[in-house]
């Protein structure tokens, strides 16, 4: 589904990603872990099409197409969804209007008729239950005045409506208490279909108790320095990131 080859990215002249290669097949859940500043969020931003990061080398192929040829909105309509680490507040734009516009853009892309207001509200009601989001939030402006937990739930709520093929969850667990974490993780699990894929970017292993990955990558200093099964996450939780750093230095990769 997604093939990243030797991806190098800089921001304002500073090299952030130093050559990343990664393949995600349909149906897989990959976790990308790593200490702060290792480049995790930059990778997520590049996948979603944020233009502050400059791709200097490498390719990304998504569903057989060159991802770099696609605008952020095209990526979304082709099934990529980024759950933001810091969801943006947009005063004056109602959740309903925002999501209805977004969903109808997706439908148009898929050759479907736009949904009527009542059909759309029905979908909203169903999905609201799925992520246990407060009904009142859906009547407010996008993320405006939402608590940290509500914002993250709102990301999953949007994901449930857009039903992506590839979801990238950027630190969705940060700032969540244990109940919110459970709700968010349950939402993600309920939305999981056999052929869609998820990239879970996280600092801690905590979220991976709920969303069990097939593959765990450790990103450090712009490179993937370790890839293994879900047991790697447990090991990181126990030992922290220092041993990885030491290993990297000993092997002289960095």
């Amino acid at each position: 589904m997604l093939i990243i080859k030797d991806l190098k990215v800089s921001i304002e002249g500073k090299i952030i990603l130093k050559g990343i290669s990664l393949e995600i097949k349909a149906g897989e859940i990959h976790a990308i872990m790593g200490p702060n500043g290792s480049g995790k969020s930059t990778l997520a931003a590049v996948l979603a099409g944020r233009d502050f990061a400059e791709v200097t080398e490498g390719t990304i192929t998504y569903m057989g197409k060159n991802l770099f040829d696609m605008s952020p909105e095209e990526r979304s309509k082709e099934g990529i969804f980024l759950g933001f680490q810091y969801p943006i507040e947009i005063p004056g734009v109602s959740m309903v209007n925002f999501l209805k516009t977004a969903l109808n853009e997706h439908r148009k892309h898929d050759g479907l008729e736009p949904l009527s207001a009542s059909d759309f509200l029905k979908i909203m009601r169903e999905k609201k239950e799925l992520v246990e989001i407060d009904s009142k939030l859906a009547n407010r402006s996008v993320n405006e005045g939402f608590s940290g937990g509500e914002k993250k739930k709102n990301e999953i709520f949007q994901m449930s409506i857009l039903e992506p093929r590839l979801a990238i969850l950027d630190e969705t667990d940060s700032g969540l208490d244990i109940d919110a974490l459970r709700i968010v993780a349950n939402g993600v699990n309920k939305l999981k279909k056999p052929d869609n894929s998820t990239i879970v970017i996280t600092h801690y292993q905590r979220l991976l108790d709920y969303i069990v990955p097939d593959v765990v990558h450790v990103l450090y200093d712009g490179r993937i320095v370790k890839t293994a099964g879900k047991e790697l996450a447990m090991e990181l939780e126990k030992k922290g990131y220092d041993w990885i750093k030491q290993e990297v230095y000993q092997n002289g990769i960095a």
Partner: protein
Amino acid sequence: MNNEPEKSERYYRLYKEQIGIISENSSPYINSFREAAIEKFNRLGIPTRKDEAYKYTNLDTFFNHEFGSYFMPSKSDFVKAEEFRCDIADLDTHGLVLLNGFYPTINGNFQQLPGGIWIGSLNAAANKFSSLVEKHYGRYADSETDGLLHLNTAMASDGVFIYVPENSILKKPIQIVNLVHSDVDIFNQHRNLIIVEKNADITLIICDHTLSPQRFLTNAVTEIYVGENAHFDIIRVQNEHNNAGKLTHTFIHQEQNSSASSNNITLHGGLVRNSTYHYLGGEGAESYSYGLYLADKWQHIDNFVNVDHAFPNCTSNQLFKGVLDDMSTGAFNGRIYVHKDAQGTLAYQKNNNILLTDDAKMDSKPQLEIYADDVKCSHGATVGQLDENALFYLQSRGINKRDARLMLMFGFAHEVIQNIKVEALRERMDNLVMQRLKGELSRCASCMVKCG
């Protein structure tokens, strides 16, 4: 100081020559203000950019112009105005159509509304309600700096009068549709007086439409009295063409525990200057001043607000927002003046602007003068571009860039629109703002509604 005497001189001469026509239909009481006013005008002159209050607004193109007419429309012109019907669906109002700001004298009788409310021309009111007019006319409009106010007092020959007696509550808003139409270029000056007595409650909507492409200049003064515990909302929808100039001076005088709001929504207009003066003249009064302006091409929109806290424990709130495209320019000048005795004052002010191009320009100037010590005041002004992060957020959900930009601008504008309490009007304004932002309104700028 009269900065450009020759320009002002022309109006002084016009007054002297035409005083007969100007005053023929007015009452002696209203006429008694004219002489002193023209002398004041002669001293102050037409404002120029050297005047602090007009620093960002150049009136030259309009005041250098020779207009074809400076006075009231003739009776036959009102016939056309009579045919106009506003078709805002679901907007149930008590309607009134004006021509160039004047009450239709063709059937110039007073309209009487439920609750003993009277609407008529100021001249007719000066006879029928002489004691009311004498109690309120000329009492609230004053300025030591703005010559245009005095030019209006000297030369305005008529205008609208609304009287809302004590305890009268009108559920439906009063809607005044002001058509601007003429075969020649005109300079309109009219004078309105609105009296809302103790415990009364009304909403007034004023919509301006230019119906012909001639050059127009309007210099209008409105005095509003809001009595004790009364409630008054005024919403202005300004939609005039690029060749029109609109100068409004609105003076809202509030008694204790009253609440009043002004909302100026400028969708379109060549040059617009709204001066809104709020006088909080009794304890516990609340005033709200809102404005939204959307400008493009060479348009210029200036909002000047003066909030005068003269008594303790009053609250005021100013919120003005603008979106400026192309090489349009805007100005906001918001003054809060808190008198020495006005303890317990709460006064807020916010002015936010989005510039869509590098050529658009906005000048924003907050001015706080506080002489009391127990006061909570805040002000904030921003001039910036659309939020890139918000834009990307919307795009990342599949919304194309153009629509995402529209959504953000709409959301930005909606913060002002949402203060309109009449739901049908609020929805209508949302639609109009959306059309305007899409660039659809400018193609049919002479009118905001389909009219027969």
